[in-house]
Each structure stands twice: as structure tokens, then as C-alpha cells.
């Protein structure tokens, strides 16, 4: 069974803090994704990685960075958290090719920035 785990279910941070969200998958998937989900806006792609140390910007990368030093781990970094980054953050992974959109999601991290 594919497992994608995220470091925290709930997180509360102050404006200006540096925030790290960690994601780990155990299925040797090449691709990993970070999304945020907001009411009325659906899920939007922040960043995508198709290999170790490789990354591509998604639809809304501003204010975020990512790190992928190992195949199984993909980190999302908020360099200086702001209140408009309060959201549900979802990590996903998938194989390449025909399974690219067969993405497996983690449980999400609900981040509140005060």
C-alpha cells in the first residue's frame, strides 16, 4: 500500500517565521508534488519535483521554495510566513509515464499563520 506521510497534521506559526513542511513517500515514486487547498479555489500546484534535486514551479510558487535531497523526501519551505499562506497543504507522489496523474496524497497539513 502506497504511503505518503506529512510531518504535521496541524501547525500554527507566526508571521515572518520560516516554516518547513516535510513529506515522505515509501513507494520509490519519481514525482512528488506540493499543493495547497483553499475553499472555493480547489487544489493548486505549488511545486513539482521529478527527480532528486530537480524541481519545477507550479501555478503558485511565489513565497515558497522546495528541497528534494533524497528520492523519498520532498520539503516545502515558507521563507517568511504570511497570513495569506494560511491553508491546507497537501503532498502527493506518483510514477512517471502513464501513471503521472495517478497521484497518491498525504493526509495534509493545516497551517495557520497568525
Amino acid at each position, binding site marked *: 500500500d502506497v504511503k505518503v506521510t506529512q510531518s504535521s497534521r496541524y501547525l500554527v506559526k507566526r508571521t515572518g517565521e520560516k516554516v518547513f513542511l516535510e513529506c515522505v513517500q515509501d513507494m520509490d515514486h519519481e514525482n512528488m508534488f506540493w499543493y495547497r487547498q483553499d475553499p*472555493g*479555489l*480547489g*487544489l*493548486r*500546484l505549488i511545486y513539482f519535483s521529478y527527480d532528486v534535486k530537480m524541481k519545477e514551479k507550479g*501555478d503558485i510558487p511565489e513565497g515558497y521554495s522546495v528541497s528534494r535531497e533524497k528520492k523519498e523526501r520532498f520539503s516545502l519551505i515558507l521563507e517568511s510566513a504570511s497570513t495569506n499562506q494560511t491553508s491546507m497543504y497537501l503532498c502527493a507522489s506518483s510514477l512517471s509515464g502513464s501513471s503521472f496523474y495517478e497521484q497518491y*496524497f498525504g493526509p495534509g497539513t493545516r497551517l495557520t499563520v497568525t
Partner: protein
Amino acid sequence: LAKTTQPISMDSYEGQEVNITCSHNNIATNDYITWYQQFPSQGPRFIIQGYKTKVTNEVASLFIPADRKSSTLSLPRVSLSDTAVYYCLVAPRGTGFQKLVFGTGTRLLVSP
């Protein structure tokens, strides 16, 4: 990316077949259609994917007409546990996926 339109919500009863239609008039040649299910406080779960005609798995069927401008997710004999939000995603496997947006989905409520 192709813009998708789904009903905001649908109601059904246990044991009925539910069909959720997604419109995607500007679908591109290399776009695939993928459906996900999401329960409250969980990440989305992949249900089914197709390119054209019909695809069936143990959970659902996906019907895609020849013009591919719409697709229908069919859930046979729903149960209470099928109450969830269902997302239709139309996107290419190659370039262009960076603008990936799942949309707001269809909220299905199954009643006894």
C-alpha cells in the same frame, strides 16, 4: 489547461447509480481525464483515468464520448461511504501540467 465545469453538488440514495458529468470543451489532444475522490480532512484519492471511450475498474466507470468535450464518472450502487467531493482533472502528461488546478469539485451526498 482545459477549464472544467462540474455540478457543485449532487444527492443520491444508497444503492443507486450516480453519474457525475464534467464538461471540458477546450480539451487538448494530449490531455487525459482523471477523477479523484476526497473525504473531509484527507488528501484526494485517485479513482480512475481515461483518454477516450470507456474505462472501468473495481470502483467506477469513466465514459468519454468521441469528441471528448465531456466525461462522466459512474459510481454503481453507492453507499453512505461514497459521500465525498469528486474532482475532475483534465491535463496533459507532458508540458503544461504546471498550471494544474483541481477545481472545486462535486460534493456528493448519499443518504440512507
